[in-house]
């Protein structure tokens, strides 16, 4: 040995260690494994590569991906990432740490989670937050489970058809195997009255899949009158300017932290968030960090309310969740620290004016019809005169990912602060040329 850079053992080391153990060979350490299970064939893997070969291999794969200007959202938003974030999150004290069980030597992790929880509460207006979830859709699924747990014996959850398709699909999957009934409808009032006696919760988007900001006035009252919980699925970046879930009367807020400067990453890792009113604090899934003191009176932080969790409660736990998405929660916490209230307002302001500019310029081409009248922030749909699929693929050939077809045959666009007027003009010009 001593020939592979991640394994420290020399031949002499191995011999000395085997002697202490009292066996003759490494294979003797597997004498309890039935011989026919010891794999004797050659593993069907490539031959070991050098670091440079691995680097070249991935550079080649990366070059097989098309580099595109992204004008689509639908759950993944191409916002700017300040340099300080990857720089700080790649510090190995953060990156290579375990879950903060040994709190005395994990105060760094515990503190940033406490900061994250605070920021999520301030964005949503709600009382408490957990340490984060895998992503937005799984956070929505956990919220669905929480509604059922909080209302006891009720087993139907109503989903707004305006939620993003991947959110609905994930909630449906979680519900299917646990035996919870899911109703997807855009007639929320009708759905609430039709299922009132069994209704555990209602999940609605703050901004729907067509980009429209939803007016939720009066909804919380209807949901609560039926004895159910209201869950709002939100874009945390947009919460910098939009009415909060607390103001709309929601009991639980969930969503994906990705718009807070997390790169697209082909879908992950992102991070889910979840906040709720304090009445439901002990029903929250996952890790929660709390503040306390040590014997010397120093402020410190610990994982708390662990009586909810799987390692204590096993099958009676509120969820099977074991980790959070810690490093990505740190990512968003640093993002929100850098942005502050004014930065977040500016991001939204730029998204608003640039997306409206694209919207108006596209309409001017005469190639689209308007679909909705409601207010939008950065994402919108239009009805194209040419087939939606053809438009998207033609734009792809021109270097844009834009005009994603929706189930209704419309096309979806999204503009963030990353794209300036010149790029938007370029996109519009390409659309005009395609129509010729």
């Amino acid at each position: 040995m001593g020939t592979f850079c991640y394994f420290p053992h020399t031949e002499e080391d191995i011999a000395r260690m085997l002697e202490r153990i009292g066996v003759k060979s490494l294979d003797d350490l597997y004498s309890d494994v039935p011989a026919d299970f010891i794999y004797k064939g050659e593993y069907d893997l490539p031959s070991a590569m050098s670091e440079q070969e691995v680097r070249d291999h991935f550079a080649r794969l990366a070059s097989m991906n098309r580099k595109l200007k992204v004008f689509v959202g639908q759950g993944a938003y191409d916002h700017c990432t300040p340099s300080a974030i990857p720089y700080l999150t790649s510090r190995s004290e953060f990156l290579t740490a375990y879950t903060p069980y040994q709190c005395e030597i994990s105060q760094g992790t515990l503190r940033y989670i406490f900061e994250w929880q605070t920021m999520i509460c301030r964005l949503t207006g709600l009382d408490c937050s957990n340490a984060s979830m895998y992503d937005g859709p799984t956070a929505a699924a956990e919220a669905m489970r929480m509604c059922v747990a909080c209302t006891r014996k009720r087993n139907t959850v109503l989903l707004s058809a305006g939620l993003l398709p991947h959110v609905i699909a994930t909630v449906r999957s979680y519900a299917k195997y646990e035996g919870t009934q899911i109703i997807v409808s855009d007639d929320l009032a009708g759905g609430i009255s039709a299922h009132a006696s069994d209704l555990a919760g209602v999940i609605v988007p703050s901004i729907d899949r067509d980009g429209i900001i939803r007016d939720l006035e009066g909804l919380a009252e209807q949901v609560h009158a039926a004895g159910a919980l209201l869950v709002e699925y939100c874009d945390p970046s947009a919460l910098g300017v939009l009415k909060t879930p607390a103001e709309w009367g929601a009991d639980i807020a969930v969503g994906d932290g990705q718009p807070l400067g997390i790169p697209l990453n082909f879908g992950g890792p992102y991070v889910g968030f979840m906040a709720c009113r304090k009445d439901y604090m002990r029903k929250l899934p996952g890790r929660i960090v709390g503040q306390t003191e040590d014997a010397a009176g120093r402020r410190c932080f610990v994982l708390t309310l662990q009586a909810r969790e799987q390692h204590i409660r096993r099958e009676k736990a509120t969820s099977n969740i074991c980790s959070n998405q810690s490093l990505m929660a740190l990512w968003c916490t640093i993002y929100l620290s850098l942005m502050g209230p004014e930065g977040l307002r500016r991001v939204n302001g730029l998204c608003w004016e640039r997306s409206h500019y694209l919207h108006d310029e596209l309409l001017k081409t005469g190639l689209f019809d308007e679909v909705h009248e409601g207010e939008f922030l950065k994402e919108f749909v239009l009805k194209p005169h040419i087939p939606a699929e053809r438009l998207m693929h033609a734009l792809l050939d021109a270097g844009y990912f834009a005009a994603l077809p929706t189930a209704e045959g419309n096309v979806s666009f999204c503009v963030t602060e990353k794209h300036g007027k010149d790029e938007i003009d370029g996109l519009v010009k390409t659309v005009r040329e395609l129509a010729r």
Partner: protein
Amino acid sequence: MKYYDKLIFELSRPGRTGFSLPAAEGGMPVGGKLWRGSAPELPEVSEPDVVRHYTNLSQMNFGVDTGFYPLGSCTMKYNPKLNEEIAAMPGFTGQHPLQPKESTEGSRAVFEELDKALAAITGMKRFTFRPCAGAHGELTGLMLMKEYHLGRGDLARTKVIVPDSAHGTNPASAACCGYEIVVVKSKADGLVDVEDLKPLLGPDIAGIMMTNPNTLGLFEKDIKEIAELVHGCGGLLYYDGANMNPLLGVARPGDMGFDILHLNLHKTFSTPHGGGGPGSGPVGVSERVLPYLDIPHVSGFHGNFTVMLRALAYILMLGRENIRMAGRLATLNANYVKESLKDCYRLPIPSVCKHEFVFDGLLEPNGTTTLDVAKRLLDYGFHAPTIYFPLLFHQAIMIEPTETESPETLDAFIEVMRKIAEEARTDPGLLHSAPRTAPVGRPDETRAARQPILKYEA
């Protein structure tokens, strides 16, 4: 490590900014019923404030790059730096998850290569990469178990068998999937009691969740008989991949009769734990479960893609040659530590272990507990082992040194563990009052739970 007491909110000054963005022209509405009345109270800090604050926080953290983690069932191996370089390549990070196939050939090739490699390593047919963590993989695997039975029109299978030594996530995941839990006991030798298992099997059993080697670090050598019995009653075998590391390059769960397996890429395949995620928990299946693999939609898009990049980079570095040593060296390290400490710590099961083993506290505790030993280790610059798990032993200390730890590191750990055993005999106060060199002492956890403070308030 030095104590640093600030929270980012305490550095905030009105009007200070840490962003660099052009001014907006002001078209966005400022009022109205859809809009927020007042801005969220986020910190107002400069970029230098932020960088220094989080650097200071990081310095209160222990990590694999700082020191040794003998953390059982967690496989805290070295996280290669090449992996980070690859995970940050813009050609991968700039890809939108909904881009049409023809624009994402490179990323798709990553999935295909990793799928093929994991299938070769585990003996399973194919993997789904949507699960974002080990427990998430378990949940997905149980969904697949349910799909399999539903697909056969077999609706009577409502129970899942879980050994008493299982990770807590096993019963929790099965419950989240709507299953009733049946516990099978372990024998005195720490292995699943086949005689206890037999009467549990029947037409209501969906399957069994096994960890092999189990949480005591012991290979379930009756696995062949267990597989025959469970399959014989119409159930499936689930493999909890948390303990896959000792089998890496040695044996394949697929050959043992397992139908569904999850792997923890952040354990066995060297991707960093990140202080508790992001991980990745791909699920592999045997031929009979293959038709159902893509049915559960358990996360938003394609899973934690950049974690997969890291895992594939590690596998390519290992190659078919070095992989043969990975599990063997992990097992060597574990047995070496066990044999070097068994005269000071109670070893309830003396047989050869795999990648980890469990002590049941000190031989002569003299009023000290496993918690005291764990906290005293922090004073000597080591992370603590996993403690009070598995539940079979009251003072459990579960130790897993991975293959990337050198004999010198292990010797230093052994020396400290022996010293702590000696301190327990001669000066137990040193253990009770530990840690004393960490940034903070033991926190008041009762107070944290009774009067929860879960967010900052000025």
